[in-house]
C-alpha cells in the first residue's frame, strides 16, 4: 500500500514553547484516521502544518508523494482542508464561491462540478444568495464543498462536525469521512462518533503522539514517562 501522509520528526515551536514535538507518523492511502487529544495538545497545529498553512520549525513531511519542501504546489493540489473558519467569501454566493475555487484549482468544467457539489451538500436552492445570510451549518456545508472542489486524494479536517445538524453530519460522513479511496485525517472531540467512520486513532498529548490504535497508521509513540517530563 502506498503512503498518503508521511511525517518525519515534525516539530513546531512558537517562541519558547514546543507545540509539536518530533511527530513521526505514516498514514496509508485510503485510511480513515481520527486525531484526538485534549485542547492544546497540538491537533490543530499539526493539521495546519500538514496543510501548509503553518511552517514547521523542524522535520519534514510529504503528502501523496509530494515533498512539502520541494513540491508545495503538487501537495496543495492533493489536499482538501477544513479548518475552524469556513474560508468562504461572505459577499459571494455559494455558486460564485465554488466557481472561483474551481477556477483557481484549474478544475476542468468547473461550472458543472460546482453545481454538482452544491447539490450534494444540499445548498442548491440557496446557491444564489450571498453567503453571509446563510446559517453556520450551511457555511460548514459550503466549506465541505470547497474542500472537495478539486477532488483531493487526502482530506485534512479540523473538527468538521462543528455547526452541523443531524442531516449535515450524515452529509459529512457520506462525502468526507467515509468517502471511498480518500485518505482522511480528522481532528475531533466527538469520540463516540469516531466508531462509525474511523479505522484508526492517533492521540496527541502535549505535541507528541501518545497512542496509536487501528489499521493504516504507523507512528512513533512517546512513552508516558517521556511525555510527562
Amino acid at each position, binding site marked *: 500500500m502506498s503512503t498518503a501522509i508521511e511525517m518525519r520528526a515534525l516539530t513546531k515551536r512558537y517562541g519558547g514553547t514546543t507545540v509539536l514535538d518530533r511527530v513521526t507518523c505514516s498514514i496509508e492511502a485510503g485510511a480513515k484516521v481520527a486525531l484526538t487529544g485534549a485542547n492544546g495538545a497540538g491537533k490543530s497545529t499539526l493539521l495546519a502544518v500538514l496543510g501548509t498553512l503553518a511552517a514547521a520549525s523542524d522535520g519534514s513531511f510529504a503528502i501523496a508523494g509530494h515533498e512539502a519542501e520541494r513540491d508545495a504546489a503538487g501537495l496543495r493540489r492533493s*489536499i482538501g482542508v477544513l479548518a475552524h473558519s*469556513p474560508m468562504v*467569501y461572505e459577499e*459571494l454566493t455559494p455558486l460564485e464561491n465554488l466557481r472561483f475555487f474551481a*477556477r483557481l484549482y*484549474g478544475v476542468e468544467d468547473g461550472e458543472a462540478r460546482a453545481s454538482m457539489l452544491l447539490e450534494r451538500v444540499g445548498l442548491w436552492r440557496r446557491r444564489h444568495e450571498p453567503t453571509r445570510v446563510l446559517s453556520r451549518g450551511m457555511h460548514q456545508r459550503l466549506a465541505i464543498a*470547497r474542500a472537495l472542489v478539486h477532488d483531493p486524494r487526502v482530506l485534512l479536517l479540523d473538527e468538521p462536525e462543528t455547526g452541523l445538524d443531524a442531516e449535515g453530519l450524515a452529509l459529512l460522513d457520506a462525502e468526507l469521512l467515509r468517502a471511498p479511496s480518500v485518505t482522511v485525517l480528522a481532528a475531533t472531540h466527538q469520540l463516540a462518533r469516531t466508531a462509525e467512520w474511523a479505522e484508526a486513532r492517533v492521540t496527541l498529548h502535549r505535541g507528541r503522539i501518545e497512542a496509536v490504535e487501528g489499521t493504516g497508521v504507523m507512528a512513533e509513540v512517546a512513552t508516558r514517562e517521556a511525555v510527562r517530563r
Partner: protein
Amino acid sequence: MSAVAAVLEKDLRLLWRHRSGWLSAATFAAISLLVYAFAFDLVGDEVRPLLPGVLWVTFLFAGTIACSRAFTDEVEQGTFDALLLAPVPRTALYAGKVLANCLALLAVEVAVMLLATILFNQTLISPVLLLDVTVGTVGYVSLTTLLSTLGARVRAREVLLPVLSLPLLVPLLIAGVRATDAALELPAGSAPWTLLLVVFTLWSLIASALLFPLAVER
C-alpha cells in the same frame, strides 16, 4: 495566468459587491475637494497652481485608506488561507488584487478630476494628465496592497496603513504633482518628473511583487 484571471474576476466581483464601500471612498474624495476649497479659498483663476497638489493629496489619502482593506478583509474572513491553499503562485494572488484595486481607484480618480474640472473651472481631463495619474495609481496601489497583508488582529489598522505607506510614497507625491504641473503648463522646474514617476512605479511594482510571497509565507 489563468490564476490571475480567476483572482481578478473574483476581486472585481467583490469590488462590485462592496461598492457601497467604494462609493464612500469616492464621496470622501469629493468632500476632500470641498474641504480644500474652503480651507484654501480656492476661488477664481489663481486656483490653478494649487490644483495638482489638491488632486494628488486627495488621491493618496482616499487611495491608501481604500487599499488598506485589500488583503486585511481576506485575512479577517479567513479566505486568505483558502487562497494560500490553492496551488497557484503567490504573485498571481497579488497581481489580481492590484489590478482590481487599480481599476476601482482609477474610476474614483476620474470622477474626482471631473468634479474638480467643474468646481474650479479648469481643464483637467487631458491624455497626458490621465497617463500620469494612471502611472501614479499603479505606483501607490502596488505598495499599499503589499502592506495590506498586515493582518486582522490589529486595532488601529485604518490609520496605521496610511502611516506606513505615505512616507514611502513621498517620491510619488512629489513627482506626481510636478508632472501634473507640467501637464497643466505650470512652472515645474527642469527635473524629469514624469520619468521619476514612471521609475518609481516600476520599482514599486517589482519590489512589491517580489516581496509579497515572502510577506505571506508561513
